[in-house]
């Protein structure tokens, strides 16, 4: 079995968001980059499948030199090889899906795993788009995965519950929190990863679907207000404010 895991490097959730001078992208200064947490579940699932029934796991990411950190970590965790597609991995989901599809087609992957979304951009689009571009089955936001002979059975999170999806391999499946508990890299794994090389390829040229034309910060939160008077007057004031200003009743 051959598994591709697509990983995205994203700004740490603690990052203080600043808009770059172009007015439409994130100011990269002081940004700490991490692997998107949902992608960690995807990678862990691939490694568990490899351990349980044997598989070749290939980690892939789209971006510049900085995403090599993500791929090195994937190798340390147990991926057999890693591919860096040199291109814009932070932009349009449709463009990224085309880049990955151009790489993955004709390579005989039985399973492609990725996070259900890259945090930050939150498009949740690359997985389903990739499935379509490759003409294979998909399911998204899964919390459980069982593989049969050329088939899969997954539990997918939906509003207020979950559902069981069955389909044929090859498939693109996107991971949700709860799928598994990702491991940490072992020292042995880290040492072994140093001997592996990351294959670097130019990403295929693609067409853009959508683009961000402006990135803006939300308005400053207004200052708080202190209600004065005895408790009864304060309660009355709060009630009035909730009723007339916040209109919660």
């Amino acid at each position, binding site marked *: 079995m051959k598994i591709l895991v697509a990983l995205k490097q994203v700004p740490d959730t603690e990052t203080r968001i600043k808009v770059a001078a172009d007015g439409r992208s994130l100011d990269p200064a002081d940004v700490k980059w991490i692997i998107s947490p949902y992608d960690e579940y995807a990678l862990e699932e691939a490694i568990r499948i490899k351990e349980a029934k044997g598989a070749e796991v290939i980690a892939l990411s789209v971006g510049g030199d900085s995403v090599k950190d993500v791929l090195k970590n994937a190798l340390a965790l147990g991926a057999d090889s890693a591919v860096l597609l040199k291109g814009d991995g932070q932009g349009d989901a449709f463009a990224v899906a085309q880049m990955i599809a151009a790489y993955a087609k004709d390579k005989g992957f039985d399973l492609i795993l990725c996070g259900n979304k890259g945090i930050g951009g939150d498009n949740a689009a690359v997985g389903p788009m990739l499935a379509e*571009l490759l003409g294979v089955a998909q399911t998204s936001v899964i919390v459980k995965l069982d593989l049969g002979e050329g088939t899969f059975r997954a539990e997918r999170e939906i509003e207020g519950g979950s559902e069981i999806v069955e389909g044929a391999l090859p498939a693109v499946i996107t991971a949700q929190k709860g799928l598994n508990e990702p491991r940490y890299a072992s020292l042995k794994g880290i040492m072994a990863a140093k001997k592996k090389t990351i294959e670097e390829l130019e990403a295929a040229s693609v067409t853009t679907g959508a683009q961000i034309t402006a990135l803006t910060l939300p308005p400053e939160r207004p200052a708080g207000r202190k209600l004065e008077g005895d408790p009864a007057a304060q309660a009355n004031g709060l009630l009035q404010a909730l009723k007339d200003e916040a209109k919660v009743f």
Partner: protein
Amino acid sequence: MILVFCELKEGQLRKPSAEALSEGRRLADAAGKKLGALFAGASCAGAAEAANYGADVILTAEAPALASYSSDAYATVLADAVKAKGATVLMAAATAVGKDVVPRAAARLGAGYASDVTGLSMVDGKLQAVRPVYAGKAFATTTFATPVQVATTRPNVFPAAEKPGPGTVESLPAPTGDFKSVVKEILAKASGKVDLSEANVIVSGGRGMKDGANFKILEDLATPSAAWWGPPGRPWTRAGACPTACRWARPARS
């Protein structure tokens, strides 16, 4: 045409779909276009309700094989409807189904896609979307580089406004089988609870609830028709008081 893919639940139009339709109507008026509501399933009884939210035409793709959701089959319905009607905008609510099928349909159409948007407008005849990014710490104004423009709307953001439309019903050819993946079974559907995405009021408790059993108090407080209850954060879902799907305090579900 502006085409809105709508979902039915027990023969009723889902609230997030009504919201998407209302927004579609507003955009169609701004652009001087027709509004189409698209339904798929074994039966689309109840689709007529879309006329209450301004649908000029109601398109139904009915086939026994569509009784259970299938990503690829539903994507075919969406993409074929866009092509058949020459629609330039495809919309749907960002529900579990919407977020799964719409990007797939967009890819088939070679169309740009903006997910989970909180604002839409027509600028010079082209769709423009605003969507929260970086966990709501910033807003991205998004434009499309493709002739067909695709977006999913975040539930509970756009008002569902009743505005009667002609709602002429037209049936479309539907895929009949040989699907790549299909939903086999629905599990652990929390009964008696309104979907979080459809609730008007959300009642929730945090660490102050002290004990998982005390969530009964919140459950009793929430009326079955309008409110949804649940813990806002990780501690209680970890403690098993509520499944992860119940946890509401995450950016995708505001």
